[in-house]
């Protein structure tokens, strides 16, 4: 009898909280998806250096950006034939995700934005700072992008590393080099 009481109690309690969670999930899922969508759009506009406000974000995006799907890869084309796409890979402590944009020559970088990173705050974490990412502008990714010790960057495929964050710099270099070739080859066919 005692056991039966326990079972009934647990089942009732479980059902009550499950119902509550299902309701919350149902209510928040569309909002969360929308947030992620907006975040992606903001990053794409940022990387093309197109200004927008919170209100007109969607309109500016649909007016200026053409989304192209190719072999399961998503490309964003701007009106002036610049191209951008997502890159991701592992950093030191966790994944790094970002969007990289190329000038119409499909060779030199127009800009990079970081969507997600878990690097050491103040060291590798500076990878998402605009001042650092600005160093990549105009740099060429062929034959390969090289991140060299701070202050040593001279050639057009060399970028300064973040001081004190060799591992993050190395990971970021690999992440870019591993992916851009394939993506750029695909979009060049167009």
């Amino acid at each position, binding site marked *: 009898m005692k056991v039966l009481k326990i079972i009934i109690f647990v089942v009732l309690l479980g059902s009550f*909280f499950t119902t509550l969670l299902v309701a919350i999930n149902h209510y928040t899922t569309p909002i*969360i998806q929308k947030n992620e969508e907006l975040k992606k759009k903001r990053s794409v506009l940022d990387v093309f250096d197109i200004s927008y406000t919170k209100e007109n974000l969607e309109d500016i995006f649909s007016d200026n950006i053409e989304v192209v799907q190719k072999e399961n890869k998503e490309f964003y084309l701007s009106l002036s034939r610049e191209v951008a796409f997502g890159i991701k890979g592992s950093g030191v402590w966790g994944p790094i995700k970002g969007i990289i944009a190329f000038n119409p020559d499909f060779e030199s970088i127009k800009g990079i934005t970081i969507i997600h990173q878990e690097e050491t705050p103040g060291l590798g974490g500076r990878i998402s700072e605009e001042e650092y990412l600005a160093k990549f502008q105009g740099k060429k990714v062929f034959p390969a992008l090289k991140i060299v010790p701070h202050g040593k960057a001279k050639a057009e495929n060399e970028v300064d590393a973040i001081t004190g964050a060799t591992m993050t710099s190395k990971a970021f270099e690999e992440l870019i080099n591993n992916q851009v070739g394939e993506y750029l080859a695909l979009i060049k066919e167009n």
Partner: protein
Amino acid sequence: MAKNIKKLLRAKGFKVMMIGLWRDNPVFCMLLGICSGLAVTNKVENAIAMGAGVTFVLIFTALTISALRNFIPARVRIITYMIAIASFVIIVDRFLQAFYPVIREAIGPYVGLIITNCIIMGRAEAFASKNKITHSMMDGLGVGLGYSYTLVIIAIVRESLGFGTILGFRVMPDGWTNWVMMAMAPGAFFVLSIYLWITRTIAGVESKE
């Protein structure tokens, strides 16, 4: 009006709340919730979000457990606490993802870890399972606020030294060099130890040896 306030101050619920704020403060008296206190205090914003999340879960867990206290079979009481706590934590997590995605991103995995925050389980077992609903909720509020302000104090020290800002506003002079260590976990240990030393001296807490 003044009479009402006096009455409120003398009420048991209020006293219960004040105990949580100071004498039984979860962080410096009971030394509970230290792990999350170390993890999310590098920025004031994160500390506030974490404090609010924990306070919310504390209050609603107290409500649930206190309301059910005469029905919960003793053998499954811990499971009951866990189900209630886990559900409220998921609610907090979904709420942050939907309405405060930036903060959710910053404190990410730690939101889920509210479940393992010993303060909540501790208060459910020690207080909510034995007291009436209003007192239990006031206890949850008091302990939650006690936890929150401790986190915020630590975060103010860490953010101002580690980033030169408080809540994103610049507070340090231009020539200030950020103490990177303060932004990282070791800095949290130093600030927390100093904080414990000061508050325990003021509160007159002594180890029973």
